[in-house]
């Protein structure tokens, strides 16, 4: 039987406002437990929320970026449930009138094809605190620093058809929010979290299958694995004659399995109703217009520009524009380097590999865009070969110099382009290897091309790689043919 997986994602994105959505407390990550929870965050009696305008602006920006309607009078509602890390006993969220209406996110798949994924809505809400279950000897610790951190929850339609598509969608959301500068998108710090609604149906079926919601998945990799393992669980269940039940499940990354958390029957009745402490958020067209003007170039537009302006392939341009920081790095580097293709190759190649190797994000790269640009300049003017360039790159990466020029100078890596010096080396190698010279001279053109590599290698070795390879080839050809 041919199964089709149907996925909808709910993505929670923490906004990078300085203060919380309804209080003046700081949102900075990593402070001592409960040091960033003020009277409002602690839900002391008598305290009241005041909406952070920046969070509203951020949500509008996101809405504009996905071409969504902005609700001109959106309403905050209370979502009621008891939990120790939820101090008020309700989460202030949005339900009936979310700030961002229907929108569209275009995703690009491995094979280069694109699909439009519909966003049902996106709403503003406050984050809860954190419950810490370790280190408290059978008790739980509560840290309310995160309580009240602004979130937008982006709810997709069930338009995704594979774990890969889900990841592509999530990456695109990540790309959009980081481009907009409204979130740092750091999944490891929980700045972006995701719930996946997964169901399966036979291909060609119109009706959706019963869905399970997998809660709180916190990495791209886990999203992919969780969806795959959950879809397979449902397929196996149905094929064995069972039925999928609507429930909330938890993904255990250690065991790579999902486990039931609670069934639909046990689900909370959240008793949503408009929060009487907050007035409806009235948004003027003038605010939308001014935010539209502030809108930075978004990933799709940037990719197209990189293709046309720099003549890059769609593949290279996609890689470079997936993150705004990479695109900015590339453009800075390219401006100095003066060669877009070389710059793209170095950013997508050597730099990306080095970052991956050390598990570093681009912002933590020891090598700056200016430094890489300077390095490429020296490749272009033949000061160094591509091979030496990799040495210079390593040196700069390891902090052994402020610029490519400094490293080249200090290590004496400058390419030898002096005809006399290269000629001397060529003569020396020819004289030292008479047998190979004989062999070469006896060979036909086809074999000569292979044999000449031996001489080039010897000379590069003698010059520690610094001899200009073009000149070496040219002189070798001439001298061996004499």
């Amino acid at each position, binding site marked *: 039987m041919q199964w089709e997986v149907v996925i909808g994602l709910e993505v929670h994105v923490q906004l990078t406002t300085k203060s919380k959505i309804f209080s003046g407390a700081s949102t900075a990550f990593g402070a001592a437990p409960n040091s960033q929870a003020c009277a409002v965050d602690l839900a002391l*009696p008598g305290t009241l929320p005041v909406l952070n305008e920046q969070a509203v602006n951020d949500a509008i920006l996101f809405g504009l970026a996905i071409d969504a309607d902005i609700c001109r009078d959106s309403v905050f509602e209370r979502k009621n449930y008891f939990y120790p890390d939820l*101090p008020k006993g*309700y989460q202030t969220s949005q339900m009936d009138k979310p700030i961002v209406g229907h929108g569209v996110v275009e995703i690009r798949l491995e094979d280069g094809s694109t699909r439009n994924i519909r966003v049902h809505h996106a709403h503003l809400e406050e984050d809860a605190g954190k419950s810490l279950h370790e280190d408290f000897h059978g008790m739980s610790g509560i840290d309310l620093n995160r309580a009240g951190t602004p979130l937008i929850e982006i709810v997709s339609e069930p338009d995704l058809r594979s774990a890969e598509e889900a990841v592509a969608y999530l990456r695109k959301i990540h790309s959009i929010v980081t481009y907009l500068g409204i979130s740092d998108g750091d999944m490891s710090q929980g700045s972006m979290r995701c719930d996946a609604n997964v169901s399966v149906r036979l291909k060609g079926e119109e009706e959706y299958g019963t869905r399970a919601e997998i809660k709180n998945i916190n990495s791209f990799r886990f999203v992919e694995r969780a969806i795959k393992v959950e879809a397979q669980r449902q397929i196996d269940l149905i094929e064995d004659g069972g039925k999928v039940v609507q429930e909330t499940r938890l993904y255990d990354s250690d065991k790579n399995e999902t486990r039931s958390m609670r069934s639909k029957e046990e689900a909370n009745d959240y008793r949503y109703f408009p929060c009487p402490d907050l007035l409806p958020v009235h948004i003027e067209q003038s605010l939308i217009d001014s935010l539209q003007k502030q809108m930075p170039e978004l990933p799709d537009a940037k990719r197209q520009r990189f293709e046309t302006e720099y003549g890059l392939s769609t593949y290279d341009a996609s890689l470079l524009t997936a993150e705004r920081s990479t695109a900015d790095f590339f453009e800075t580097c390219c401006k100095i380097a003066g060669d877009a293709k070389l710059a793209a190759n170095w950013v997508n190649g050597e730099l990306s590999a080095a970052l991956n190797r050390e598990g570093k994000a681009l912002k933590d790269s020891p090598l700056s865009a200016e430094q890489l640009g300077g390095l490429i300049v020296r490749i272009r003017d033949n000061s160094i070969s591509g091979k030496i360039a990799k040495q210079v790159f390593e040196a700069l990466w390891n902090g052994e110099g402020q610029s490519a020029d400094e490293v080249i100078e200090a290590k004496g890596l400058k390419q030898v382009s002096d005809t006399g010096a290269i000629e001397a080396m060529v003569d020396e190698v020819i004289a030292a290897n008479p047998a190979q010279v004989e062999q070469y001279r006896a060979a036909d053109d086809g074999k000569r091309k292979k044999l000449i590599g031996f001489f080039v290698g010897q000379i590069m070795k003698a010059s520690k790689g610094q001899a200009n390879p073009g000149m070496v080839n040219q002189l070798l050809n001439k001298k061996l043919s004499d």
Partner: protein
Amino acid sequence: MPSHTVADLLRGLAAGDFSSEEITQQYLDAIADRDGQINSFITVTREHALEQARAADNARQRGNAGALCGLPIAHKDIFCTEGVRTSCASKMLDNFIAPYSATVVNNMASAGAVMLGKTNLDEFAMGSSNETSYYGTVRNPWNTDRVPGGSSGGSAAAIAAGLAPAATGTDTGGSIRQPAALCGLTGLKPTYGRVSRYGMIAFASSLDQAGPMARSAEDCALLLQSMAGFDERDSTSMDVRVDDYAGALDQDLRGLKIGLPKEYFSAGLDPAIGDAVHAALEEYRKMGAETVEISLPHTELAVPCYYVIAPAEASTNLSRFDGVRYGYRCENPADLDDLYTRSREEGFGEEVKRRILVGTYALSAGFYDAYYRKAQQVRRLIKQDFTDAFKQVDIIAGPTTPNPAFGIGEKVSDPVTMYLEDIYTIAVNLAGLPALSMPVGFAGELPAGMQLIGRDFDEGRLLAAAHQYQQRSDWHLRTAPECA
């Protein structure tokens, strides 16, 4: 001293007839002597009050006297007061020392007011008789077998008993006006948004409003001046200019159009209260005002509408009292559910639990449309009734309550009858309008109150209208027998 008005005291303080420390001491002594019988205070902040009084006297000597400099007042124990227990008359908050002060408390302290203590109320302001307090029933100084009204019954009884010249109250469905009426005082519920709710423990957020309680309209004007104003910490407070209430009291009432809703003078109104109100209206006509009968056709829906909306909001406002961070926590909870269940079961009183249950029900899936949404629609109709009425008249007048103070224990077992005591006051909260109650006579030995309702932010006109009446009457200066 007992019958001194705020205006008298401020004049005396300004003239140097007495110091703040002297009168503060006298009120503290009176509380110590006589509050055992009335039970109007939950907490008396004796040392704090004397300290504030001395500071006020010093400020006055330095020529630095604020508008209420040295005036002793009491705060309803629903306002957070830094460093002082703020109980909301609940076992739940019996151990809660507020780490900050409400905006109202700060505003009045900045004006120089001296806090005598925190007054009793119905638990979480839920009640019309002050019988639901964890700290015991408050007694009406006019007859100690009677209730003082509620929920601001402690504030009302304290003033009526001469234990404080003025107090703050809060009014969600009549909680300032009804006890003012039952204790022979003047009390004003301002327009929703006129006074900050920050630091005032929420009962029903869309209805709650703080206001002054005192003997006279002039006193209320003086107090409101300092209480009112926009507060950026309360999103529902309004950035509307605060009028000079005391300065505008001397208004000629000729031509004032007073609307009399026929629904407020129907069966169920105690005849003696009806007579007192009619007599007061006759005085208004003598002053040149005109009275016209009007209709507020949705009046009878106000009580049911209120008893959906207020409990719905309350049910979630009170979720924060969960035994986790502050307040009452049960002994040895077995697990989280047990912690929640027993802390709330043991920490809340019956009426509070009743309203949480009603509100939870009204918001539940499957019932929301029939109750909460429907109530909101009715609320708009009620507001519209007033909007239409105010096209014809300047203010609306009627009795504040259908009956004078009832006996302690008389209605406590019948919540619906108790809820109907607020029949004339509740619609005003649903509409967000300002209204005051003032004494206009007696039903037997018990005070009768008349309510004046105004347009949004028309507190000035209400206070002036009441003040003009009080220039020609002395009901507001009568003292209760327990005030000897």
